[in-house]
């Protein structure tokens, strides 16, 4: 409607294919540099806001609630946590079906209000429950590159 002339034949209809051809390199930032250098050592740090009583993992340079600067308040938080929620995912990020499913979870790091989104490994899916204690399994030290993938997965304790 509204047009006085429309396609009358399906075979006349056409489209134009195209793409946005960009690529990216993201620096991990001030807090990220601190976090991933520790990850390479097999450790994890967070950032503490004393006034809000919140410990952020991954660490940030600011508290999102009160905007306090947290750069002088980094602290080691350990590599253990509990499963906050989890899923078994059968779909790849491009929307196709995965060859093998993965178990993805939000891990709440002990003593913090933050955590990591990561895989669960060395575990039977049926045995997983919300609140399950888990710990990070790191790649061998020489394979670590300062990335979230330096952690292979979390496994039950």
């Amino acid at each position, binding site marked *: 409607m*509204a*047009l*006085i*002339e*429309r*396609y009358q034949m399906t075979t*006349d*209809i*056409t*489209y*134009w*294919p*195209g*793409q*946005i*051809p*960009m*690529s*990216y*390199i*993201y*620096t*991990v930032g*001030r807090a*990220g*540099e601190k976090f*991933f*250098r520790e990850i390479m050592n097999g450790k994890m740090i967070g950032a503490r806001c004393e006034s809000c009583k919140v410990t952020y993992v991954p660490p940030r340079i600011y508290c999102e609630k009160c905007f306090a600067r947290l750069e002088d308040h980094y602290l080691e938080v350990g590599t253990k946590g509990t499963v906050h929620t989890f899923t078994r995912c059968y779909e790849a990020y*491009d929307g196709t079906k995965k060859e093998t499913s993965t178990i993805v979870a939000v891990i709440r790091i002990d003593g913090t209000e933050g955590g990591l989104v990561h895989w669960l490994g060395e575990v039977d899916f049926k045995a997983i429950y919300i609140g399950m204690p888990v710990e990070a399994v790191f790649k061998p030290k020489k394979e670590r*590159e*300062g*990335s979230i993938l330096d952690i292979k997965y979390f496994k039950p304790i």
Partner: protein
Amino acid sequence: MAITEKDVAKTATKLSINEILEGKVLSVKWEPKLKYAWDNGPAIGRYLAELKEGRIIAKKCAKCHRIMIPPRMFCELCWVPAGEWVYVQDTGIVNTWVVSYVDWKATRLDIKGGVRPFTPAVIEIDGASKGMGILHHLNEVDPWKISRGMKVKAVWKPAKERTGAITDIKYFKPIE
């Protein structure tokens, strides 16, 4: 207040591109696949189909009688559905142009090595209303001899190579 050197000193940390590329600082790479198939619709669909035939088509507004190129199904100024289809010429005049030493990635062309600079222009198409132009390349002309108002004509790809695209016109070249 006033914003001083001291205030801004620690707000951002300067890096060189090599510090990033050589891994002095940590980074993550990503190549998104952002692909589309945009529906042409009747106006652009016909425009492309006519280009394939070696013709340029426009739409005429039934109210203001502007002959509009590229064609559109409505006149955006009068806010009425557009009227009849009108073939326009494949000639026109140069409204404005550039002599570019860079491509779309900001990479410099090897001008000294003999590469011809790009000379894209806005070309007012003959037969369309005054001032109605399209973007296209100029060629077969000394880049430094292009002038405002220069008459130009489309150089088409051979019929069998045309696909129904703006690039079915290879470029425009000057005519007497």
